[in-house]
């Protein structure tokens, strides 16, 4: 825990659970190598809910897939990762499997494809319970039913023998959450958990996530492209753009005093049901392709406030206020 305290600016926050330093990820090799993450630094505190927002391809999912060693052999991952102070980068698969699920669990966007369609959901849950908790037989089954109850599956005993296709999308996502809770993790990574679900079901699942997080004192990273979902669930937000962090702030700060032009653009281009109907102010242009980033700030070609230095250098993430860091030359001292 000793080396860990340095990068943190504020003192009152709970201790850091997971810290990622200088995370770079690239795919392919030789001339076709494409770098998708460019030295990302990220801290998750004990029990907090951190939102990660950005458009497709900005690297928000890859961050966690890379940290957990789930990207496979064709990806080159570099960086220093710590879990409660202990390094876990460069661990072999066997050692990582003691972290995955038990300490850091992940749920994905499409529950139907994350569950095995030919096994009953109970069987899949029991597998997770016996893997993480070492329970067998009736004890494992009882624990699995308890997990189903915890995620509010009605008639948990009966649903135990159902196949994933017999349940709705919302139910399947509840099963995924139950499986993620099987190892009683310290951190739950929810990767777009409600994107594939309908509006009323989305509200149910978000509520469930908040509830289990509070009950278990678990930290959560909610990855979403939808700022309004993040606004509702998270206390801190990280805005990502083209493989870098653009802005990190407490949620309230971010929505009141967004400093990065990209964040400002994101906020004004989302139609909002609560404010008067007005024309959306769209961000012109499009996200640059990974591997074809401009030399300087990757948002520069779309930015209304572009300056000379934006074309030349990449801005670093600097604090502008307590709990608020921005990577932009406009706010740099």
């Amino acid at each position, binding site marked *: 825990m000793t080396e860990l305290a340095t990068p943190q600016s504020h003192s009152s926050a709970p201790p850091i659970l997971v810290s990622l330093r200088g995370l770079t990820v690239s795919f392919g090799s030789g001339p076709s190598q494409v770098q998708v993450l460019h030295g990302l630094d990220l801290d998750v505190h004990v029990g907090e809910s951190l939102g990660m927002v950005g*458009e*497709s391809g900005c690297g928000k999912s890859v961050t966690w897939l890379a940290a957990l060693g789930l990207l496979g052999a064709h990806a080159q991952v570099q960086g220093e990762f710590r879990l409660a102070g202990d390094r876990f980068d460069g661990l072999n698969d066997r050692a990582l499997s003691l972290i995955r699920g038990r300490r850091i669990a992940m749920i994905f966007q499409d529950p139907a494809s994350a569950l095995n369609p030919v096994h009953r959901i109970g069987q899949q849950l029991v597998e997770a319970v016996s893997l993480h908790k070492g329970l067998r037989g009736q004890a494992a089954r009882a624990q699995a039913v308890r997990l189903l109850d915890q995620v509010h599956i*009605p008639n948990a005993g009966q649903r135990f023998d159902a196949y994933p296709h017999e349940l*709705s999308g*919302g*139910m399947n996502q509840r099963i995924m959450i139950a499986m993620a809770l099987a190892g009683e993790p310290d951190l739950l990574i929810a990767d777009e958990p409600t994107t594939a679900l*309908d*509006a*009323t*079901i*989305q*509200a*149910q699942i*978000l*509520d469930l996530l908040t509830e289990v997080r509070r009950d278990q004192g678990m930290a959560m990273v909610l990855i979403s*492209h*939808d*700022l*309004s*979902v993040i*606004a*509702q*669930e998270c206390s801190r937000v990280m805005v990502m753009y083209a493989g870098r962090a653009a802005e990190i702030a407490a*949620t*309230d700060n971010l*929505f009141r005093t967004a400093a990065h032009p990209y964040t400002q*653009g*994101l*906020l004004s*281009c*989302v*139609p*909002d*049901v*609560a*404010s008067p*109907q007005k*024309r*959306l*102010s*769209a*961000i*012109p242009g*499009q*996200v640059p392709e990974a591997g074809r980033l401009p030399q300087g700030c990757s948002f520069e070609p779309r930015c209304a406030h572009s300056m000379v230095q934006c074309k030349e250098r990449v801005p670093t993430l600097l604090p502008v206020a307590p709990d608020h860091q921005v990577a932009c030359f406009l706010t740099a001292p």
Partner: protein
Amino acid sequence: MTTLLQVQTLSKHFQVRVPEGWRQRKATLRAVDGVSFDLQAGQTLGLVGESGCGKTTTARLVLGLTAATQGQVLFNGQPVESKRDATWRAQRQNMQMVYQNPLGALDRRLNVISQVLEPLLIHGLGDSLSQTEQAQELMASLGLPRPLWYRFPHELSGGQRQRVVLSRALILKPSLLVCDEPVSALDVSIQAQVINLLQDVQERLGVAYLFISHDLKVVRQVSDQVAVMYLGHIVEQAPPNQLFSEPFHPYSQALVSSVPSLWQGQNQKRHILQGDPPSPLSLQSGCVFQNRCPHAQSICRQVKPRLTPLNPERHIACHLFAENPRPSAVPGEARS
């Protein structure tokens, strides 16, 4: 203002087979069940609802792509038939569709300008020089600059592809555009560009939109009227400001409050519905929303509420708002 599109008690029932043990059972899936609405020329009607509520089937029925089981669609006063004859083709010239996934809607082996001018070829309008000119002019006005015209769909970004699909739909100068989730596959910053473009096009060309989406924020942004669908029925229809500030139907209330708002954050009060929508295969008598409705009464289990006007702009299908429900007057409810 003229009425461009009239949809009258439109239904589409599919005969399906559902597994029952080792056998299969015949069943009727009521995808759309007695839907009525009007669309004025140059206006936008937003159709919202969850997946499987019949939004896309309604769109296909409106365009005559599937035959209706009951009811009819009048376009400019003429019934839209599903038979592929000369009348239908002439009608289709004025009604076009924009799909959700632009890459799926475009031909991967044809450059985009050829695809944009293809409708002109099909309808035999103009010579090849004027066709190309029209296509170029339209694409330029929709934000597709010259270097992109001869590219293939995979060489364009998602937003550009959707602009190509939109150009192809608009080249015949239709008076109705049916947009089925036109921005759902796009990133938020691109979404805003396409929404703005759709609004500009409407202002410039006076085209009416039937705008289908599951995203209430987007629907509110573009629509003049919003119809909320649930299991093949329209449960409420109202102007967006009224619907979103004060939804009346219990389902609309839940739907509206389930939309997370950027500015209300964690203080937002929500009505969370329990459970999932029931299967459209096994609908009970009475209101389709009864199992999830917090206010369900005995009448809701027996009598299907009809879409009735509360005021000229606002319609609702709910017994809570009916002064005098007349069970005998409701068609199709003769069973005991």
